[in-house]
């Protein structure tokens, strides 16, 4: 068996070599012809005659497909002995093919055949010439196994050079194969792409992703957060975005939906690669000296300026002459400035309880339950992360993958005092000038530059597409609310790229589409989308949207715009239901924000509309408004007063004209209830 496979691999390699030689000769001939005739025939028969298929190439698919029964390992836990194969053999044969320079020949063969050529009947002429998509997946799965495990250097310099050269050779082969496959996929005609099995295309993309992650680790000392323009991972993300764009701009709905699924995966990956905040501002803690700026531990930052693949820690050094008032607000007194202040008068025998000189650490600790909790503690110098630490506050999470602390939800520990603090992220751990070069930023830039939102809400709008675009719109909305910057250099770089996030114009387009679309299903999907995005929107986006919606409502009772009452009421109903459900869950009693104010005003406009009683959703809207309007904060009181004045005006308008202006005469007390 082993021998036959080795011979088979040899045959394939030799076939590829022969074809490559023929190709080379044909290209030389063509170049000679070109010298005579600068416009050679460029039709399908010419291309067919030019290049040939490799008759034995599909054998590689059979040998490299890891799912073949022959490679299945014995599973001791299973009662059957179905798997009797040897997975090691596959790896050996892959190595044999590589050593025979098979991959090299394959890459040369594929380079000339990448893309697709469609004839008049819509058939792809290169369909049987370029390896099919399933074979591409198997080839990628095979070549990735040839990659060295790490870039470890041997003690012997000669041997080290040889190993390094071999590794570089393999890496360049891997990159060349993946490049030609990416090129082929991106050049595929839509008709060809439509015929392909989407799970296999997604599989090819998955293999490429896995491969580039490995390459990124090998080729550079880059950390995962560092897919800069030079790193291999950047090439992959460029391909991934181009593939997604190709799919979502196609005419076929299944391809579009596939493209949107790819965008979802892209967003997920971009988020996982987002660099952590450079610092946290802790504020509002009862133990005043815990408040302040916590800077990322410099030991955690690599030479490339990105965070190493380790547990994050942030430190806050309480000034030696700490005054509680300085740190209560979460501010930081610069060391030199603090030095000029009058030293705090502390009796020499007393231990100061203002935390002066202490270093408070924000770090994550793995508990016995394997849950990862965050702590604000005075870490023990010898055994940090143990019971010897003095814990002030903690954040319990049930997730084992919670990489960053959440701003709220902190609890007070024994050493701390209520209330627990809130956290605010500051900046990103990236080298200077790279603040807007993260995968997230590039994705946002891609989406805006290619008008992806306009594609969703444009002429070819489809409810399935709208429903899938929610994640991207939420992502873009969050990009407009990036972590705050503290120093001037960051602030300068910020301003330039503000346009690569969700804009008010996008939301207004969504609303415009909503009111102009006769298809109720599409409109309902847009309401759902807008309502789901609304809590994530900064006030600079949410308020213009709500104002635009309100202006489309017929406020004055005129005929011109009254058509949109139904649409606005549907939107209001969707918001009311969502916010009521959210409030029930969280029991939020926070002060009303400007966005809450705008939402309440919009809802009130619906409630007081002359057609409102005809709405089925009237009660939902009323329930929401009156659950909010009874809050006793400043903003709500102001709104309540405005609403009461409005109702007073309408009652006066409908009521009789009074002649007697005297106050009521006391005769009968009829007020009993309260």
């Amino acid at each position, binding site marked *: 068996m082993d021998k036959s496979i080795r011979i088979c691999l040899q045959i394939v390699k030799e076939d590829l070599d022969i074809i490559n030689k023929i190709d080379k000769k044909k290209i030389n001939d063509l170049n000679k012809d070109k010298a005579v005739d600068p416009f050679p025939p460029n039709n399908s028969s010419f291309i067919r005659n030019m290049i040939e298929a490799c008759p034995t190439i599909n054998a590689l698919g059979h040998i490299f497909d890891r799912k073949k029964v022959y490679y299945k390992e014995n599973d001791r836990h299973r009662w059957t002995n179905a798997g009797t194969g040897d997975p090691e053999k596959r790896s050996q044969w892959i190595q044999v093919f590589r050593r025979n320079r098979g991959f090299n020949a394959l890459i040369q063969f594929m380079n000339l055949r990448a893309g697709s050529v469609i004839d008049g009947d819509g058939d792809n002429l290169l369909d049987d010439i370029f390896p099919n998509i399933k074979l591409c997946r198997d080839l990628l799965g095979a070549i990735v196994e040839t990659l060295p495990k790490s870039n470890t250097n041997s003690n012997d310099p000669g041997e080290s050079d040889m190993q390094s050269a071999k590794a570089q050779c393999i890496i360049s082969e891997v990159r060349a194969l993946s490049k030609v496959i990416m090129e082929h996929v991106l050049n595929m005609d839509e008709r060809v792409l439509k015929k392909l099995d989407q799970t296999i295309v997604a599989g090819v993309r998955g293999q490429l992703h896995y491969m580039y992650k490995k390459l990124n680790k090998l080729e550079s000392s880059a950390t995962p957060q560092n897919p800069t323009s030079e790193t291999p991972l950047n090439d992959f993300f460029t391909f991934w975005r181009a593939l997604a764009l190709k799919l979502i701009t196609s005419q076929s709905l299944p391809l579009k939906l596939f493209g949107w699924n790819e965008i979802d995966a892209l967003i997920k990956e971009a988020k996982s690669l987002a660099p952590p905040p450079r610092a946290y501002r802790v504020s509002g803690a009862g133990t005043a000296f815990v408040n302040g700026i916590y800077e990322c531990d410099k030991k955690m930052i690599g030479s490339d300026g990105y965070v190493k693949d380790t547990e994050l820690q942030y430190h806050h050094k309480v000034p030696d002459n700490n005054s509680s008032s300085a740190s209560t607000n979460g501010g930081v007194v610069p060391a030199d400035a603090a030095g000029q202040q009058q030293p705090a008068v502390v009796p020499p025998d007393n231990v100061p309880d203002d935390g002066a000189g202490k270093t408070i650490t924000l770090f994550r600790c793995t508990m016995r339950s394997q849950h990862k909790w965050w702590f604000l503690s005075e870490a023990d110098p010898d055994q940090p992360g143990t019971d010897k630490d003095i814990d002030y506050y903690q954040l319990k999470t049930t997730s084992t993958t919670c990489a960053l602390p959440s701003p709220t939800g902190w609890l007070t520990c024994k050493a701390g005092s209520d209330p627990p603090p809130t956290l605010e992220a500051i900046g990103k751990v990236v080298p200077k000038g790279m603040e807007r070069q993260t995968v997230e930023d590039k994705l946002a830039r891609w989406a805006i530059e290619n008008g992806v939102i306009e594609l969703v809400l444009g002429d070819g709008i489809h409810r399935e597409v709208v429903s899938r675009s929610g994640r991207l719109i939420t992502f873009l909305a969050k990009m407009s609310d990036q972590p705050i910057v503290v120093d001037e250099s960051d602030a300068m770089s910020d301003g330039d790229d503000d346009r690569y996030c969700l804009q008010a114009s996008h939301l207004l387009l969504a609303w415009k589409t909503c009111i102009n679309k006769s298809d*109720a299903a599409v409109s309902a999907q847009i309401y759902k989308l807008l309502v789901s995005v609304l809590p994530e929107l900064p006030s600079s986006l949410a308020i213009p949207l709500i104002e635009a919606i309100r202006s489309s409502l017929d406020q004055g009772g005129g005929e011109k715009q*009254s*058509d949109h*009452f*139904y649409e606005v*009421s*549907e939107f209001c*109903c969707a918001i009311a239901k969502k916010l009521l459900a959210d409030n029930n869950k969280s029991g939020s009693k926070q002060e009303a924000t400007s966005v809450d104010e705008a939402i309440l005003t919009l809802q009130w406009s619906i*409630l*007081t509309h*002359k*057609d*409102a*009683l*005809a*709405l*089925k*959703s009237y009660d939902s809207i*009323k329930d929401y408004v*009156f659950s909010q*309007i*009874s809050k*006793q904060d400043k903003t709500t*009181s102001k709104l*309540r*007063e405005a*609403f*009461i004045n409005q*109702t*007073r005006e*309408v*009652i*006066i308008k*409908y*009521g*009789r004209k*009074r002649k007697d*202006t*005297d*106050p*009521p*005469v*006391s*005769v*009968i*007390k*009829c*007020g*009993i*209830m*309260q």
Partner: protein
Amino acid sequence: MWHYAIRNVCTLKSHIFLFLFFFQQVDEAHSLQIVQLAKLLLEGCSGKEMESILEYDGRYPEMHFPTLFFDDLVSYLERRNKAVVSSATPPVRKQSSAIVTPEFNHPRALTARLQILRFVFGLGFGPVNGNPSMPQMEMSKDQINDIWDECLQPADQSAYMVFLATASKGDDCKCT
């Protein structure tokens, strides 16, 4: 014969005119809706806010909320007695399953208004939300008579009697 026919046509015309006049003047459903919303808003007010709202200002008597509710009730009854009251449903442009067309229910409208009146005068009856300085508000005999005079239908009179029976203070009542 002709004279009789012309007179009939004229009567019909005057009815149509009255109907149209009142239809354009007051949307009864909307009027009631606003009064009910005002009540809900008042329910959400704090004691201090309530005090300022219910305070009688001689300069702006028309803005006094309890008086407003009273006037609203009387004018509603007047409208109802004078002409065929508009019970037309609000015009809705886009009919869909999300929209229902409610029928205007007059007995319910009267009861709802009486309840609102009771609520708003009830607010001034004693300390509101522990606020002893809340002004006392009482309905005058004239006001009670005004409403009674407009309750021409037995059902309205019955509803009003129920209101008086439950809202008046019994032994404390002073009729002058």
